[in-house]
């Protein structure tokens, strides 16, 4: 219990972005999600996507005017150039013409692009996938009618993903924070670990057979 706020204490586990101790309000950043409803004509959906792309471009231009770091400016320039390229959204407009809603068409167009960067051998090109994810979420938010909110100063930011200039790709969640679910551990792929797991499986199988036989009165139960 927090003695000042008289609220139950919440524990949020994660990886810190910087060393040290920080005190302040916790702000959760929530990734944008596609709108599922279909209430516009194909022309309306195409116009909605065109408007969202242009609004996102203007957001980025405004953001680029504020940043001073050269790397941040370069990434924003890259994202602006992507939005100005008709090839990026062309598959989405084609899907809308075939009856898809704008948000899902946008996802169908940009997710394969993101996947090509994710699969790149070169580390630098792989890193560009996050820039495209940022772009994807930015346009989705605009399609949902959301407006970017600046993260207030003096807060502790908790997000699934974090990039230096990627904060605004998330919607600010004003609700009380909940603990993030733990990710399931992946089994170790070391040959010894694989062999040990195989032994364990054999032992369990043998054990279950013996217990079955025990119930039938032919063996001693395994403790």
């Amino acid at each position, binding site marked *: 219990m927090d003695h000042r706020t008289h609220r139950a204490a919440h524990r949020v586990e994660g990886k810190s972005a910087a060393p040290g101790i920080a005190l302040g309000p916790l702000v959760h950043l929530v990734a944008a999600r596609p709108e599922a409803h279909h209430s516009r004509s194909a022309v309306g959906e195409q116009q909605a996507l065109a408007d969202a792309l242009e609004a996102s471009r203007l957001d980025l231009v405004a953001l680029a005017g504020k940043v001073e770091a050269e790397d941040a400016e*370069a990434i924003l320039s890259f994202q602006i150039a992507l939005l100005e390229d008709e090839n990026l959204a062309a598959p989405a407009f084609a899907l809308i013409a075939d009856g898809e809603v704008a948000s899902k068409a946008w996802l169908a167009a940009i997710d394969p692009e993101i996947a090509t960067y994710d699969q790149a051998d070169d580390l630098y*090109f792989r890193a560009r996938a996050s820039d495209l994810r940022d772009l994807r979420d930015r346009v989705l938010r605009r399609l949902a009618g959301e407006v970017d909110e600046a993260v207030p100063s003096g807060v502790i930011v908790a997000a699934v993903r974090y990039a230096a200039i990627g904060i605004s790709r998330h919607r600010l969640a004003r609700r009380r924070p909940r603990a993030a679910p733990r990710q399931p551990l992946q089994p170790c792929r070391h040959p010894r670990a694989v062999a040990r797991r195989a032994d364990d499986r054999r032992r369990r199988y043998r054990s279950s057979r013996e217990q079955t036989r025990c119930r039938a009165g032919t063996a001693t139960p395994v403790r």
Partner: protein
Amino acid sequence: MNRLKASVLMRHEVGLHARPSVKLTKLAKAFESKIDLGLSPDGPWIDAKSIVKVMATKAPKDSTIYFRAEGRDARAALDALVMLVDGDFQDGP
């Protein structure tokens, strides 16, 4: 109208990544000619004004970039693009 060609060795440390691609496509768009880019003299060719296509080449350091241009300002476009790539995009990685 004649189609002109040019090529240049790209020595940029991390290849045709985001910053060089932005510069290259911006410069290409400054010309009205149709400009294509390829990684071999026979193509395949992609639109040099599209950053989506240019980045998709994932051209590494020491790739030879081939250009072909068709239009009224094709020669000026090729000269400018070759100078940009040869000048290491005017900055480091």
